[in-house]
């Protein structure tokens, strides 16, 4: 299949206008030894019909969450996506547009980002937000960099209850040599408060906490917030956006930077991406925020208009003095997140958060009736771990019964309960886990 519209006659006439005789002459500036002497080995081009069949066949080799109920969470969640979203996201004015550098023909995109920023601020209780980053983990890594720059310190304390992939990504970013990462230990699934308080000192740029944490549990942060602020360090919170309809927001905890994975807001699982990292902070740090930011202004007639702003922070202006190299973000996923929040609305998001919590509570009670113990005795939102003897084995058997099981911990399985799960699915999960674990 080709997507080039040229006829042979047009090619000939265009070459003539350029003053060349063949397409090959267009590449006479490439040294002869560097030119490919043979065709690439990519096979023959496929027709649309063949491609359709091929993609259908290939995707059918997977088992997906539309076929089997999914109890996996651990950073990506199987929430319901309203039907209107696919229709609206199919508008090619949105998805085939470039970054809105030309404000006059990009007001629609700019306004949608301004609205997104507003909603992220509302959710997190923070004052300003950027237009999105790659995902939850990279947003966190950028937040850690930002805290180091703001405090002119380089020690970052990560909670051991932070998502392991997020810990790994922050450590990778620390290859810059500009951040020292230390891990604060956990106790019974939550931060060991005594130990982390002892670790905080005048070198601490920031303490990073995930809420709810990787095990789905809710962390007590009051003493921690006071301690890190007492040494003029920052509190960075990585949060689940759906949980914020119910749980105390980063703003209410006194956090300086809030980040998180925006996937639960209307973005399909898509085997891990594209998702979006959201990032918000207080006004005083706006000029340290990485990535794009949309601001409100006026046009020459004094009419309200939106425009990319504070670009002096960014790589294309600041080059080797920029604090972040971010250029592309996840604009379409951020658009999806704001469409989602608009469609479910203020009340809908609360209903969803509550339903997730109620289903998880129901599952907890059902597990305990089966004699299956929770790994941690702590308050949770929509996810918790239960002790099993052989987690991989339980997962394998669950799969045979048509259930996508949990995230495998050393001696436990971490299960997530979204509003899509029903009582009967949970009953089946609990019964099966109980039976398999006793076998």
């Amino acid at each position, binding site marked *: 299949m080709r997507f080039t519209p040229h006829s042979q006659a047009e090619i000939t006439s265009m070459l003539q206008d350029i003053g060349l005789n063949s397409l090959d002459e267009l590449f006479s500036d490439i040294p002869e030894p560097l030119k490919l002497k043979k065709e690439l080995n990519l096979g023959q081009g496929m027709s649309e019909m063949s491609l359709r069949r091929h993609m259908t066949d290939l995707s059918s080799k997977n*088992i997906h969450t539309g076929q089997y109920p999914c109890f996996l969470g651990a950073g990506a969640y199987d929430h319901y996506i309203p039907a209107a979203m696919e229709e609206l996201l199919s508008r090619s004015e949105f998805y085939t*547009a470039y970054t809105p550098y030309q404000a006059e023909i990009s007001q629609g995109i700019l306004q949608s980002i301004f609205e997104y920023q507003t909603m992220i601020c509302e959710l997190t209780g923070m004052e300003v937000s950027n237009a999105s980053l790659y995902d939850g983990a990279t947003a966190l890594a950028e937040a850690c960099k930002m805290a180091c720059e703001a405090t002119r310190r380089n020690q970052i304390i990560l909670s051991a209850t932070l998502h392991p992939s997020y810990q790994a990504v922050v450590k990778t970013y620390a290859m810059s040599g500009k951040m020292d990462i230390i891990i604060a230990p956990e106790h019974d699934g939550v931060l060991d408060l005594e130990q982390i308080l002892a670790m905080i000192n005048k070198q601490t740029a920031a303490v990073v906490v995930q809420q709810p944490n990787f095990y789905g549990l809710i962390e007590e942060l009051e003493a921690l917030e006071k301690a890190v602020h007492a040494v003029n360090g920052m509190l960075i919170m990585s949060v689940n956006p759906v949980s914020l309809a119910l749980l105390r927001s980063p703003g209410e905890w006194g956090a300086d930077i809030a980040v998180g994975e925006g996937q639960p807001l209307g973005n399909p699982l898509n085997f891990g991406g594209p998702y979006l990292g959201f990032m918000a902070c207080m006004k005083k740090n706006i000029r340290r925020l990485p990535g794009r930011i949309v601001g409100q202004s006026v046009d020459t007639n004094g009419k309200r208009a939106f425009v990319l702003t504070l670009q002096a922070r960014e790589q294309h202006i600041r080059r080797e003095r920029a604090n972040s190299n971010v250029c592309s973000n996840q604009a379409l996923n951020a658009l999806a997140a704001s469409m989602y929040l608009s469609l479910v609305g203020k009340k809908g998001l609360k209903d969803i958060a509550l339903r997730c919590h109620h289903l998880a509570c129901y599952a907890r009670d059902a597990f305990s009736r089966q004699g299956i113990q929770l790994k941690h005795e702590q308050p949770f939102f929509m996810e918790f771990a239960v002790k099993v003897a052989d987690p991989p084995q339980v997962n394998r058997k669950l799969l045979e019964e048509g259930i996508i099981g949990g995230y495998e911990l050393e001696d436990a399985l971490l299960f997530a309960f979204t509003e899509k799960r029903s009582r009967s699915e949970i009953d089946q999960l609990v019964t099966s886990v109980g039976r398999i674990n006793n076998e």
Partner: protein
Amino acid sequence: MSKLLFEKNVPGSNAFSLPPCDVPEQDIAIPAKFLRQTEMALPELSEVEVVRHYMALSHQAYGVDDGLYPLGSCTMKYNPKINEWAVRLPGWSCLHPLQAPETVQGALELMYETERMLCEIGGMDAFTLQPAAGAHGEMTGVMIIKAYHQHRKDERRKKILVPDSAHGTNPATAHVMGYQVVEVKSNHRGLVDLDDLQAKMNDEVAGLMLTNPNTLGLFEEDIEDIARIVHEDGGLLYYDGANLNAIMGVARPGDMGFDVVHYNLHKTFSTPHGGGGPGSGPVGVKSFLSDFLPQPVLIKEKDGYRLDEDRPLAIGKIHSFYGNFAVVVKAYAYIKALGSAGIREACQYAVLNANYLRCKLKDYYEIPYDRLCKHEFVATGRWQMEDNGVSTLDIAKRLIDFGYHPPTVYFPLIIKEAMMLEPTETESKQRLDDFIAVMQEIAREAREEPRQVLEAPHNTPVLRVDEVQAARNPVVRYDKS
């Protein structure tokens, strides 16, 4: 200008509902101190009003489907619709990233095959699909370079060389990764100055980041010498793949001596830009660097594919999961549709279109390096500026009135009043001819009725926006009060 969502609020009008709850709705099992106390001012709207809101916003946006989008270095080619269909297959969209390997063999196969095809196109040995964008790929690539030198205990290398014509992401990436950036000058032909490179290359330099063809659309003809100079002193050569569309199927960065490359799937491989993302910036390396690629690494074994996390020399992870998978699906479908011949043809026609445009515009706009270009070239508004006080920005804004997206402007920085034009291969001769006529007309207006250009755009929902005010007193969220 549409009202904001928040200005349309009608409390109680949202009718979103969940199915009846079939489990007991107990009290919230969370202590009160952990619960939210403040209200969230999220929208309260009916579905129809939400739909109309976003429809109205879409009418104030401009995509490739609306018309020619000659943004230099951005490769705004047509995004085939079959790819959009393919990515919505539930076998892709409903896959959880942490599912057991035996349940995601199709996805792993697609990723593996994409890696192989990207290797073939670039002449590289191994690829990672984890980076979520071009700049993210650059960061990954520079980390790999750093890890390589560190592994060899070669600790003196604290500098990265970057040409003065480079994309801003190159120096920014090197700086963010803890390197000192040293700029290499361009010569009078717009190419890397070999003497300057030689003078700045030494055993303190970790590598050179280079775009080829460069941001002037010119092929770095001395690339073999450049590679020799960098390698002789122990440095590595990094390929910024922003302009890969100009050579794919014709020549390969791997054959030119590049050790690390990144591609932009959202440029070269036709995945849509999404209004600023998601992109995808896979990174490829020569075999001697493959141990440093981020984990997990995809491995093909007798009984299928798996993700290998046990990589002692790997730089680490750079994404929560495996990168922008759905973007990779679209790029895979694109390469499959084109095949070997189609990939080469896309490149040839991209270069044909750029040279055609260059030849047709050169009597109307200054073209500082008026010779054979690759997929893009740089023109300027210097004549218009000097003769009539009309700037490149004015010309760009006037193009909007005629229904075109402007080119990239004021970049590369080494050219005054630059306009960087990249038509891509998916524009027909008729489209180009229409665009040329408009550019000629704007050049005439600049001479004869400059106000038309100076005050453009005239027909857009808003006129020129005051960027200074936006930056001086940033208002970045709606506030009811």
